[in-house]
């Protein structure tokens, strides 16, 4: 019995961690490359969820296919936000950039509230995916699928950064903006593309999460605070770090909830975060020596 409980909680944690990882990947990318803490991220996730919801209701598109659609929509939104507004302060101190994205988030989130209202929606599939069960351990298929898809997307992002032309340009700009500019890279465009990719990841995550979490503009702050924790846990700007950070957070929350009671699960993860910031600010996957 105790073993079943242990493994069930472990599985719960890992699956939840997979979802967390896909929330955080884009946030981490933007932070790492642009040095911008994008407060808008949570709201981007919510827009992704709404896209998938309405695509399913009106067009019958399966949310896992909407991942592509939501990604494209968010890429455009992200690109425009960066090109139009955020680029003006890209080299500014963190005070400025953080306040700016915070202000933008207040605006965008309130707009969503006006357009979609605060009522909670949830996407119910006509044919639910069901639950896998073996040896008394339950694994919900939709979460599992979302997790696998998230892993796939994260790997895809990793591959894009490593292998594609634009990816190399992003990495180059991140290493040394001046040098990259001299080599003919249009840094403004690259920044906007990066921000767009971050938003794309958020949108895709949102689409996947639409079958799992209730949808409302209000939940954006929950996503955002998870992204924060995961990013610092995993190490900034590293796509692999987001993956690891997400899984660690998922497992810590699950076991924290089991041992200390569910009301303390979040406190525990935050305390973990503060300790990590104090003793190892570069995160689990980060390299030593910072700023």
């Amino acid at each position, binding site marked *: 019995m105790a073993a079943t409980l242990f493994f069930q909680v472990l599985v719960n944690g890992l699956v939840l961690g997979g979802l967390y990882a896909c929330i955080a990947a884009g946030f981490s990318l933007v932070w790492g490359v642009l040095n911008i803490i994008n407060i808008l991220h949570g709201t981007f996730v919510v827009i992704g969820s709404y896209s998938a919801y309405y695509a399913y209701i009106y067009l019958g598109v399966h949310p896992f296919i909407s991942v592509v659609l939501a990604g494209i929509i968010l890429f455009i939104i992200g690109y425009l936000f960066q090109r139009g507004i955020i680029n003006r302060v890209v080299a500014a101190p963190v005070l400025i950039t953080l306040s*700016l994205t915070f202000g933008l988030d207040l605006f965008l989130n309130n707009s969503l509230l006006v357009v979609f209202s605060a009522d909670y929606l949830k996407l119910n599939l006509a044919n639910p995916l069901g639950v896998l069960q073996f040896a008394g351990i339950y694994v919900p298929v939709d979460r599992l699928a979302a997790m696998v898809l998230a892993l796939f997307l994260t790997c895809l992002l990793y591959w894009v950064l490593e292998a594609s032309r634009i990816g190399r340009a992003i990495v180059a700009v991140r290493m040394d903006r001046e040098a990259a500019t001299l080599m003919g890279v249009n840094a403004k465009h690259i920044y906007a593309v990066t921000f767009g990719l971050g938003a794309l990841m958020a949108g895709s995550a949102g689409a996947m999460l639409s079958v799992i979490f209730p949808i409302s503009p209000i939940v954006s702050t929950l996503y955002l605070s998870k992204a924060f924790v995961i990013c610092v846990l995993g190490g900034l700007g590293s796509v692999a770090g987001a993956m690891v950070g997400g899984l660690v957070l998922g497992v810590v929350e699950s076991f924290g909830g089991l041992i200390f009671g569910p009301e303390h699960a979040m406190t525990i993860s935050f305390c973990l975060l503060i300790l990590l910031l104090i003793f190892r600010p570069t995160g689990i996957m980060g390299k030593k020596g910072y700023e």
Partner: protein
Amino acid sequence: MKTKLVGLFVIVLLLLIPIISNNYVIRLATMMLMYSVFAMSWNFIGGMAGYPSFATASFFGLGAYAGALCQVNGVPMFLAWVIGGLVSAVFAWVLGLAILHLKGHYFAIASLIVAEVLREVINSATGITGGGMGLNIPVLRMGVDAQARLFYFSMFVIALVTLAVSAYVSGRPLGFGLKCIKQNEDAAGMTGINTTIYKTTAFTLSAVFTGGAGAFYASWVNYIDPEDVFEILISIKPIVMVLMCGAGALVGPVIGAGLFLFLEELVWRNFLTFHVGMLGLMVVFLVIFLPTGLLSVDYRKFLKKVVR
């Protein structure tokens, strides 16, 4: 000389408010003074030492809860405010030693997350703090008008003390050393500045008055809950206020607070369900177009341009 005259004029004006206006205006004026305490406090660490602190909400919330719990347990109101300030200060000292070695984004995030941690802790410590149910603070047994004025003048005193300490610090080695740290921390260390102590002191100063204001707030509104006093917006507002009037300047934060409250109130009155969004636009506008402060705009030149 002229600056002093202006200062005196402003003080007289502020003292006149409770005599010539109604309770609601007094409430707004009290709020403005409280905002200016936030801004001046933030200025110690953010303006003088150049550290991007988002910890205002933590200090405020902690002070509010410390003060409220004192009052619930029978401590007199004014003493509870002092205790609120001190609790925040001690917390800031310890926290500062832990996180002030972080730079840039890491420091920003660490200071931002602290409020979340405190909120969660207070939320789950239901037995002591009432958790999400919030905390009711005993109501003062006195007339409505008298109460409004009492709180106004109390906040006035707190703001004045904060201003005085700011002025004192900026003219002393502490302020001078912080200025050095802002410019180049490594060099400051090698010049003989104990950067850890200086930074931590600045952080503590920024906490003590914010915490006191938090305890004040608890007594003033008679009810606090974690969602309200640890709100991230509380951390953002003083930054915008200081940015509006130029970081590091002495009276800048006070004027920034007044202007910000005015704009906030204006937006809030005119948009029932979209005022948060308008507030966001306002922040965006201020950050993009006035990153060095309104006071840096040569407004005479601007006026000339407009006239022509």
